[in-house]
C-alpha cells in the first residue's frame, strides 16, 4: 500500500477548521472525532504509555483549539499531528508529570495483548493476530525514537514524506533514511513473525544483516 497523499487539503477539514476559527466548538469536536485515533496512536507510539498518551492527546487537542487561528490551510491532519508530536515531546521532557502505566503492564498483568489486542472473545485466528500485533508493537518500541517516529507516521498513520517531515521537523531526505533504517531493524526484530507467517523463508542461522 503506497503512502497516502494529502497534498490537496480535505474540504471538510477546511470547512470545519474555518468554523472552529469562528468559535464553533461543535465543528472543532468534529475534527477531534476524525483525528483522535491517529493522534492517540502517534502519542502512544512516542510515549509508549497509554496513560501518558491519553494525557498528551487531550492536551494536544486543547492546544489545537487554543491555536486554531494559527492554522492557515494545508493539511489539517499533519497540523494536528504536529501538535500531538509536540505535546508528546513535552511529556517526554517532563517525565515526572507522566503517569507510569507502561506497555509492559499489559503483558505482565492480566491483559496479554495490551492495547493492541482485540477485545471480546478470541477465536484462534484472532488470538494469533493479537499476538502478531503485540510483537509488531514490541518491535516498534525497540526502535530508536527518531526511527520509530517516522515509521509510525508513514507506515501506521499513512502520512506522505512531506507531512512526516513537517511533523518530525526533519528534512525529507532524513525521513527517507530513517524509514529505511527503521524498517531494516524491524525486519531483523520481526524475522520470527515473518517466517511464521510465510512472508520470509526460514533461515537456519537467523543471520540477518545487522543495521547500523
Amino acid at each position, binding site marked *: 500500500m503506497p503512502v497516502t497523499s494529502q497534498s490537496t487539503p480535505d474540504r471538510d477539514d477546511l470547512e470545519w477548521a474555518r468554523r472552529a476559527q469562528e468559535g464553533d466548538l461543535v465543528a472543532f469536536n468534529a475534527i477531534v472525532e476524525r483525528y*483522535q*485515533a491517529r493522534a492517540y496512536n502517534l502519542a502512544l507510539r512516542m510515549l509508549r504509555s497509554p496513560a501518558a498518551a491519553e494525557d498528551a492527546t487531550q492536551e494536544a487537542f486543547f492546544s489545537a483549539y487554543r491555536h486554531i*487561528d*494559527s492554522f492557515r490551510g494545508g493539511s489539517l491532519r499533519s497540523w494536528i499531528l504536529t501538535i500531538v508530536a509536540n505535546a508528546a515531546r513535552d511529556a517526554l521532557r517532563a517525565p515526572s508529570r507522566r503517569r507510569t502505566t507502561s506497555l509492559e503492564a499489559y503483558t505482565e498483568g492480566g491483559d496479554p495483548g495490551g492495547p*493492541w489486542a482485540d477485545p471480546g472473545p478470541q477465536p484462534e485466528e484472532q488470538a494469533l493476530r493479537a499476538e502478531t500485533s503485540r510483537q509488531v508493537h514490541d518491535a516498534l518500541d525497540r526502535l530508536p525514537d527518531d526511527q520509530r517516529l517516522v515509521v509510525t507516521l508513514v507506515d501506521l498513520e499513512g502520512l506522505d514524506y512531506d507531512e512526516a517531515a513537517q511533523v518530525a521537523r526533519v528534512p525529507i531526505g532524513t525521513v*527517507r533514511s530513517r524509514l529505511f533504517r527503521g524498517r531494516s531493524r524491524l525486519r531483523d526484530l520481526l524475522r520470527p513473525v515473518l517466517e511464521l507467517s510465510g512472508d520470509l523463508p526460514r533461515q537456519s542461522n537467523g543471520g540477518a544483516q545487522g543495521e547500523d
Partner: protein
Amino acid sequence: MRLPRVFDRRRRRYEKLVTEHLDGVLDAAGEARLQQLLDSDEALAVEARELDAVTALLRAEPLVEPPRSFALPYAPARVPAPPHRGPLRWMQAATATAALVLVTLIGVDLVVTPAAVSEAPESSTATAEQAPAASQAAPPPDAPAIDSAFADGAGQDKVQPFPLTRSLAPEPEPAPAAGRSALDWAQLGFALATAALALGVALVSWRAARSRA
C-alpha cells in the same frame, strides 16, 4: 572486501530507491534503476522482498482504539494568531540587504580612502621637492633673501629648511571632496536604513512572541 555503507554509493542509491518504491512514490525511471540493481545483486533482491514484507505487516496493523473521546467539553480561551510572517520576512531580507550594502560601502571607503591619503603626501612631497626648482625657475620676490641667509651659513639653527620650503611651495590642492562626501552620505543613509529596519524587525518579532505567549 565490501565498503562500509556510508561510502557505498551504490548501496545508498539502493536504499533511496527501495524506500521510495515501498512507499509508492518512485517514478518509472527509478523503478527501472531499482530493478536493474536487484537483478544484479541477489542479496539486495532478498532484502527488498523482506522489507516489503515488513512494510506490509506494519500497514496491516489497525489503529489502536482510543480509550475515550477527546472531544472538548468546553471552549478554552483562544490564543490570537501570530502576525503573518510575510512582512517580517520581507523586513528581514531588506535589513540584510541594507546591511550588506553598508558593509560594501565601508569596504569601498577603506580601499579608496587610503589610496587618496597615500596620494596626498606624495603630491605634497613632490610639490615640496619641486618647490626649490620652481623657486629657481621663477623665484618669488622674497626668495633671494632667504637663499642668501643659507648661503652664508648664518641662522641655520634658527631657520628650518622644511617649513621654509613648505611655506614657499604652493598649497597642495585639497583632495577632491565630492567623491568622499557622496560615499559618506551613502554610508550614513544605509546605516540609518539598516538601524531602522533592524528596529522594525525587532518590534515585529517582539509582538509575535508576545502574542504567542
